[in-house]
């Protein structure tokens, strides 16, 4: 079966690399380098993350992007041929919501593909919910999901949600 290419985008620190690490069944190809800006962590993705898994018999290739706008050429490059898009938004950091919206518009205006929004860090006490974020982004609430990108279970549920949009049908389980 032809692999399904999915793109993972979002601002710095939303959990894109963690999401792919949580899901991939193969060793993740990462391109993290030392950050020279204060971004709340030591390293940052400069080119891509790449991981693969099989879900319900479907081979899935996950391509993660850098979050900074200066790497927008990578968003465009990696979106080529993608059939679905996950936008991760850090639920504890509403200051990054405008950046997230800009990334979503940048990618979907060039590559009109189905997408879902994952609101990460739902394990934290003070965090925006999926409903809050759906209102903010003026999206259908079914397209937005609260999640924890560090958790494989939570990440799989988000992936299933996206596959429903990509395939246009409700997932019926394995």
């Amino acid at each position, binding site marked *: 079966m032809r692999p399904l290419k999915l793109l993972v985008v979002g601002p710095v620190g939303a959990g894109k690399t963690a999401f792919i690490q949580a899901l991939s069944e193969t060793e993740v190809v990462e391109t993290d380098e*030392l950050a020279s800006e204060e971004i709340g962590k030591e390293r940052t993705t*400069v*080119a891509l993350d790449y991981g693969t898994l099989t879900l319900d018999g479907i081979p899935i290739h996950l391509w993660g992007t850098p979050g*900074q706008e*200066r790497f927008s050429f990578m968003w465009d490059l990696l979106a080529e041929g993608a059939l679905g898009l996950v936008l991760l938004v850090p639920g504890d950091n509403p200051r990054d919501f405008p950046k997230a919206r800009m990334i979503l518009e940048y990618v979907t205006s060039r590559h009109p593909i189905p997408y879902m929004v994952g609101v990460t860090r739902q394990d934290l006490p003070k965090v925006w919910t999926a409903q809050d974020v759906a209102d903010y982004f003026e999206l259908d609430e079914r397209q937005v999901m609260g999640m924890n990108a560090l958790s494989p279970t939570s990440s799989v549920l988000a992936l299933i949600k996206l596959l429903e949009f990509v395939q246009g049908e409700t997932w019926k389980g394995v």
Partner: protein
Amino acid sequence: MAHNQQLLGMLNQLQHDISGVRGVMLAASDGIPLAHNFPESAAGRIGAMAAAALGLAKRVTVATQMGDLSETTVRGEKGYLLIFSAGPKGVLIVAAALSVDLLEATHKARTLAQRIAPELEGVEV
């Protein structure tokens, strides 16, 4: 770390020493320009692209058992972009015309990257 003026001096010297070099930049490993003599409007993008290319090439060398990466080269119809690792914190970028003496340019730029690397190490950039 050397002051940016000193860094820029070293970059300009490299350009002066090699015929056919069009621009030189030292960027942080995450692509932010630290010192350069490219047009300001192009610098951010060149830094980010070179950092991405070097970051990806590093994983290629690991996957193919080539040890640590030191450099990668992009050749187009009209010129080269030579990209060198300057330690874990830096990327040295040299844009050159096709007419450049590639061996000379590579050797001199590599030497400069190795010289700059320890100055970037262990300090905030």
